[in-house]
């Protein structure tokens, strides 16, 4: 009744080509962003920021990067964690090796280095496709895992590759409290999400989607596969690199290569597939699901156990957590193989017609 677009006439090309052409959508997005910037810091306590919101924001950014590559360009990658690691360690090196380097610039430069690495390791995608490519991207993962552990220069001779960064500051604003971290990550995420939205509906995004849907046909209509595949790898790695740098600088503070291991790569791929491939909102849904579920299970299981009068050991809790996590993933894939974003889209269709049946 409230959510429908009949009667809304576009009278200019500009109005027709807006990112969110339906006013309700546009206002909803504005409202969400405003709430995230103003409402959330007033309502939420510190634990929520530290344990849930900051990881959620940064991993959403990373999932967005993976989604660009996997969801929009159709190149499955299992090396996302490696791009994050490259971003994090490159940003770290810029920060400590260049005098007076602003943290934000270091983070962005880290992203650029990750993009360059992404192009190198994405090059096989020109020959190798599908699952073969997915496994081939693991090469990047294991190579960088090894490099940050063994090549001392990258980590400034730190033992076992663990490095740490003091609180960063941005134009005199020192980011130290969880609220600061939240706002900083949120700001970057919003900028990058707007960028992705525009990139994806522009020329480049359409090329990616054409390559994803059928690369031979795309080549026939004049899309250069090399250019569009490599740009997809570069942009995706840039996002991942920035996310990795944020993960290190803002969320962890001190980290070692294990923070960006293959588990991280798989986790990111989970987010994209559960959230919805080829949908920006899917990255957010997926990240929320994957970040919140383990915490939720961790809190709930002992409670459920005590309800039945059982003393649940921590080892058992962690095992049951893993079991439930795995089965929920399988369950989700069976019920909605296109992810939560599709569920959301279906809901919106329903909302459009409501309260009438047709």
């Amino acid at each position: 009744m409230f959510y429908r677009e009949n009667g809304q006439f576009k009278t200019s090309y500009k109005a027709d080509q807006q990112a969110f052409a339906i006013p309700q959508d546009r206002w909803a997005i504005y409202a969400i962003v405003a709430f995230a910037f103003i409402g959330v810091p007033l309502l939420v306590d510190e634990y929520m920021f530290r344990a849930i919101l900051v990881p959620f924001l940064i991993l959403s950014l990373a999932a967005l990067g993976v989604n660009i590559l996997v969801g929009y360009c159709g190149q499955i990658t299992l090396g996302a964690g490696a791009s994050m690691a490259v971003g994090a360690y490159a940003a770290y090196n810029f920060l400590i090796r260049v005098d007076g380097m602003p943290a934000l610039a270091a983070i962005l430069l880290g992203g650029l280095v990750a993009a360059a690495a992404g192009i190198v390791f994405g090059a096989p995608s020109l020959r190798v496709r599908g699952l073969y490519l997915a496994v081939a991207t693991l090469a990047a993962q294991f190579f960088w895992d090894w490099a940050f552990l063994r090549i001392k220069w990258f980590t400034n001779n730190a033992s076992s590759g663990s490095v740490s960064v003091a609180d960063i500051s941005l134009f005199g604003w020192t980011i130290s409290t969880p609220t600061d971290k939240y706002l900083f990550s949120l700001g970057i995420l919003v900028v990058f999400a707007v960028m992705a939205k525009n990139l994806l509906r522009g020329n480049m995004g359409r090329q990616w989607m054409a390559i994803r849907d059928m690369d031979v046909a795309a080549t026939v209509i004049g899309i250069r596969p090399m250019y569009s595949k490599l740009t997809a790898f570069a942009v995706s790695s840039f996002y991942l690199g920035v996310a990795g740098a944020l993960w290190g600088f803002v969320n962890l503070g001190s980290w070692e290569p294990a923070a960006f291991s293959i588990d991280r790569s798989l986790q990111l791929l989970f987010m994209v597939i559960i959230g919805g491939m080829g949908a920006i909102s899917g990255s957010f849904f997926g990240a929320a699901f994957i970040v919140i579920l383990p915490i939720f299970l961790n809190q709930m299981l002992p409670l459920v156990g005590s309800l039945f009068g059982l003393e649940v050991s921590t080892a058992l809790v962690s095992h049951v957590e893993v079991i439930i996590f795995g089965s929920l993933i399988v369950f989700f894939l069976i019920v909605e193989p296109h992810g939560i974003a599709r569920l959301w889209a279906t809901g919106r269709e329903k909302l459009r017609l409501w309260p009438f049946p047709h």
Partner: protein
Amino acid sequence: MAFFLETLLGGLMSGMLYSLVALGFVLIFKASGVFNFAQGAMVLFAALAMARFSEWIPDWLGMENLFVANLLAFAVAVVVMFVVAWLIERLALRYLVNQEGATLLMATLGIAYVLDGIGQTIFGSDIYKIDVGMPKDPVMMLESVFEGGILINKEDFIAALIAALLVISLSIFFQKTATGRALRAVADDHQAAQSIGIPLDRIWVIVWCVAGITALVAGIIWGSKLGVQFSLSTIALRALPVVILGGLTSVPGAIIGGLIIGVGEKLSEVYLGPYVGGGIEIWFAYMLALVFLLFRPQGLFGEKIIDRV
């Protein structure tokens, strides 16, 4: 020269062990198009079952004979793997027919989590050992040819022998039996196979059972080498370059890919490793596979990928 040969042989034998794990991948991918990331978890699960039952069965029955206990434990573990295979097909894969490759891959990852969790809940999460009486002491060979001879690990040798045996029996099973023919038919074309009356779900259960058995054999061999512990499930990652190098759809490819990767890994670690700081085995295998893939994108023996527009 002797040292080179020693490294080479060591590489060939560890390559055989990789192919054992890779076989599991190939079998399932061929028959159902599922890239089974849970293979590593299955290896761990099978090894845990084997290790624990060989410990429990003597307790329950009150007997001492190690051989009989191992045999019984093996039988029980086979049954366990059959049940696992049946459950996976019944509860998950049946509903995921015709989904995209990436979705299926993620589903098997979910299954891997579940298997890891259940395995450790039932069987415990310490380090266990499997003792099937494999000789541990190395032997010298070719002492007449080279000075000092070549040192060969007897355990590795027997393991490679078992792997070869398994491969031969699998190929006989695939080529000569009716079930094997049905499996190959399904691998070739699901719909055509179904239209001539081959029951797809039963075939899938059988394939997962066979993969379960290869996982069990791999688990026993790796487990008796390294001990049964959680890290066993990561050997799947070691076997992945083998699979793509040989081709996702080729059983001989898994074997030859395994040998190439095994040798490449060992030689690189010995001759290249010291210059770059060591520990390069794992990514070198992937790089090696990648180089081969650049020339043959479908792997050495995989089916040629034909694009139709």
